[in-house]
């Protein structure tokens, strides 16, 4: 099993608010999570779910109220580890008095890159994020998409082992989203561990190996993108022959949501909690032939909606 790049154990955050700090709010309840080397992990949740709080705890901007954060096996602050983290915040606010190039040069110096190496990486990244010929303008004249691109460039400047992106695609036009998605995929191919938050589920499905659903400050589900809803039945379907209608006992008839026939076979759509065993017995008892039993599980979007609906009410 590959090494854990992010290890969160019982991580929680609470704040005291109000004039006299009399009220306590807890944006993040105890959370356990591991992200392994080379994984692309998507952190999804509605607004206010605690995604940004978790990310700020991960990068050391917030201090945990409880629990621990370990990045690359060490606790922050740690200079060596901080060199290996690339971070782009949700609202990428940069010094507006700088140009895009000056901002990247500032970050190169903070990373301790030798000047020539810094210049080499900046030139390559400006090209890679599609800002060649435009990065020398002042940041205050940049569009949202240009700021995001420069933000991604500064996150990649240290050639990080861990890339943490908070809503990297928010507010971007389709081209911008596509380009940033491609860069994340490139990083994934290079073996960079990517942890990113989003509420654009299609991006998460396209990019991520695993996904975590956060709602109300709690991690509700974690799993592989292609498996996460597999244990969650939405409905069941039984295809049988003959097409002639069966006479089902009253208790079972009520569990059939839909009945379709194509002249040769009948398909019965059943509720997730229907008594499938009893239905199959009944079909066989009435001389029917069972051709297929299908389990319809939840997709990421349905799972997301189910897990977050209560919090959004």
């Amino acid at each position, binding site marked *: 099993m590959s090494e854990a790049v992010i290890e969160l154990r019982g991580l929680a955050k609470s*704040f005291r608010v109000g004039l006299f700090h009399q009220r306590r709010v807890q944006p993040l309840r105890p959370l356990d999570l591991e992200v392994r080397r080379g994984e692309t992990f998507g952190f999804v949740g509605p607004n206010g779910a605690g995604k940004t709080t978790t990310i*700020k705890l991960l*990068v*050391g*901007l*917030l*201090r945990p109220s409880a629990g621990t954060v370990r990045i690359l096996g060490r606790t922050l*602050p740690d*200079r*060596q580890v*901080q*060199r290996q*983290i690339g*971070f*782009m*915040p949700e*609202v*990428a*606010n*940069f*010094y507006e*008095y*700088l140009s895009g190039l000056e901002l990247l040069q*500032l*970050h190169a*110096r*903070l*990373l*301790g890159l030798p000047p020539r190496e810094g210049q080499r990486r900046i030139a390559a990244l400006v090209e890679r994020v599609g800002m060649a010929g435009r990065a020398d303008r002042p940041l205050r004249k940049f569009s949202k998409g240009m700021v995001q691109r420069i*933000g991604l460039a*500064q*996150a990649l400047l240290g050639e990080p082992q861990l890339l943490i992106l908070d809503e990297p695609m928010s507010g971007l036009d389709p081209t911008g989203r596509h380009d940033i998605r491609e860069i994340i995929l490139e990083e994934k191919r290079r073996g960079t561990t990517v942890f990113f938050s989003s509420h654009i589920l299609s991006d998460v499905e396209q990019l991520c190996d695993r996904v975590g659903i956060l709602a109300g400050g709690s991690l509700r589900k974690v799993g592989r993108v292609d498996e996460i809803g597999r244990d969650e039945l939405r409905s069941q379907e039984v295809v049988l022959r003959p097409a002639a209608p069966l006479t089902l006992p009253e208790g079972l008839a009520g569990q059939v949501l839909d009945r379709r026939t194509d002249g040769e076979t009948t398909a019965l759509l059943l509720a997730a909690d229907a008594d499938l065993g009893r239905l199959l017995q009944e079909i066989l008892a009435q001389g029917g032939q069972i051709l297929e039993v299908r389990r319809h599980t939840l997709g990421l979007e349905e799972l997301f909606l189910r897990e977050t609906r209560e919090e959004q009410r």
Partner: protein
Amino acid sequence: MIRGVWVIAHNTFREAIRNKILYILLFVALGLIFSSLVLGKLSLDQSVRVIKDVGLGAISLFGVVIAIFIGINLLYQELDRKTLHTILVRPIARFQFVLGKYFGMILVLVLMTLVMGAVLLGLLHLNDAPPDGPLLTAILLSFCELTVVVAVAVFFSAFSSPFLSGAFTFGIFVLGRLKGELLDVLPTLGLGLLGDLLELLARLLPNLYHFEVASYAIYGNQLTATYVLSTMLYGICYTALVLALACVLFGRRDIL
């Protein structure tokens, strides 16, 4: 460690010198210094003294205004605009960030003091008054006073809004100039426990009166080297203490 502080200081300096308000304040200060030429002509054979008096006053006053105006925003603006989020994730400690902001501001004040001082010396030269030791000492100690004021501004900026930071820093500047008088007067007021408390608070203030030596410069009286060095040492120690507190406070806070 020094590299990280220097990178932040350089960027803070760059930010300040791209701020138009700084130039407006500098031009007003230079205008006031130039006005001393006219005021000097109106005086009776006292033009050199008037130029020194007005010039040193302008350096001190506008230095303090610049120190407070920019100093109170140094950390608050970074927090408010969230510009420090990507900076603090880099391999740089929070205390390095605070020190970098402070020393960046000190670079700005060095530049401002040099420009204002050079203009003052130029005007004196026009009046056949060469630069003398007392005048240069007064400019030096005025600059040292500014380093203390910026440290106080940075300290408040680490945990309060610019308005409160500005009010507190200005209050400490005024009371710091009056510290000697406060300590003389408070015991005579008969305030009991409240008086003791106020005296304790007054003792915590920086004694900025020590840095205000314009009257010596105007009349050409040279201060002893011991006085100048001990005053500078006092300023450095007070600044170090205030900055250490600012670093602790900033280091413990959550960056929202």
